């Protein structure tokens, strides 16, 4: 009887839920590793470029697999929209809440409840604000990498003013 209860509980928790926490723990370990093995740069900021680079390589690969049987996107804006909706939903379980652009290569992606920040502070908490950039560097790289594989060279920066919301600034490099 007891065993049966367990079985039904197990089938209730879906696979994707599980994978979700696994990624979060792994991400946390990667952040820890990078912080433990680098010293701060000369401005006294944490040196996060290796995190960004890992994100880049993941983004570059994952977008290639996702879109391999798709028709080409027509415009830059279509790609950005795809990133904000389908792509973000798969990776971070919700869409980007707000997308702004100046139509000259600057896009601001605003996520009101970013998944990797959601567990460290809710409702505008300021407590871990100083530490939050380290949780965003990987995703910045991931964005940059996925755009790169779609043919957009860019720089991506993240900005947090109140947890758990954050903004990703994408600046497209025009040649």
């Amino acid at each position: 009887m007891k065993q049966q209860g367990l079985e039904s509980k197990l089938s209730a928790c879906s696979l994707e839920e599980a994978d979700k926490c696994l990624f979060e723990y792994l991400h946390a370990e990667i952040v820890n590793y990078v912080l433990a093995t680098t010293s701060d740069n000369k401005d006294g900021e944490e040196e996060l470029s290796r995190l960004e680079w890992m994100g880049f390589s993941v983004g570059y690969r994952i977008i290639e697999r996702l879109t391999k049987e798709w028709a080409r996107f027509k415009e830059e804006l279509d790609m950005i929209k795809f990133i904000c909706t389908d792509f973000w939903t798969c990776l971070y379980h919700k869409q980007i809440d707000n997308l702004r652009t100046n139509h000259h290569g600057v896009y601001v992606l605003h996520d009101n409840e970013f998944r990797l920040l959601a567990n460290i502070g809710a409702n505008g908490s300021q407590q871990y604000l100083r530490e939050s950039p380290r949780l965003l560097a990987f995703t910045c790289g991931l964005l940059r990498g996925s755009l790169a594989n779609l043919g957009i060279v860019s720089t991506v920066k993240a900005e947090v003013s109140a947890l758990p919301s954050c903004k990703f600034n994408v600046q497209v490099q025009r040649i």
Partner: protein
Amino acid sequence: MSKTRLDQKKVNSELFTLTYGALVAQLLKDYENVEDVNKQLERMGYNMGIRLIEDFLARTGCGRCYDFKDTAEKIQMGFKIFLGITPTITNWSPAGDEFSLCFEVNPLTEFVELPDHCLNLKYCNILTGVLRGACEMVQMEIACWFVQDQLKNDSTTELRVKFIKRLEDAIPAGDD
């Protein structure tokens, strides 16, 4: 959750696989010695394991293990929950303190081929750390290592688990 044109489950597990791959690649770049990479992976797995066990217990509502056979089944269940695979439990030692987990498929190695200079790399070593960490949190000391690896042309991936000892509850000083 909003609808999407992509297979969300698949993307999620690919995200994990690729992120792990990026980590291993970075470690290989950072350390000269492959042994150090193995060690680092194990340590990271340990840190994940001591946190994952809480998720596992909360989700399954499992109680204490009756014996090591029970432990083996729960570890198997853990793989089902977290990685979506069910390794087979085989090769029990006569004393019942050692068993093997055999993996036909391993999501961690989905897109992986080992180059020749990485023959000593235990690509999935994070798993050994996860098991050790998780078991330690439920008062069990185990040892865990790979005996076969599909990445090294073995027919299956075999993870050996050995029971070392039961850890006693530590009682804080002056609190009896």
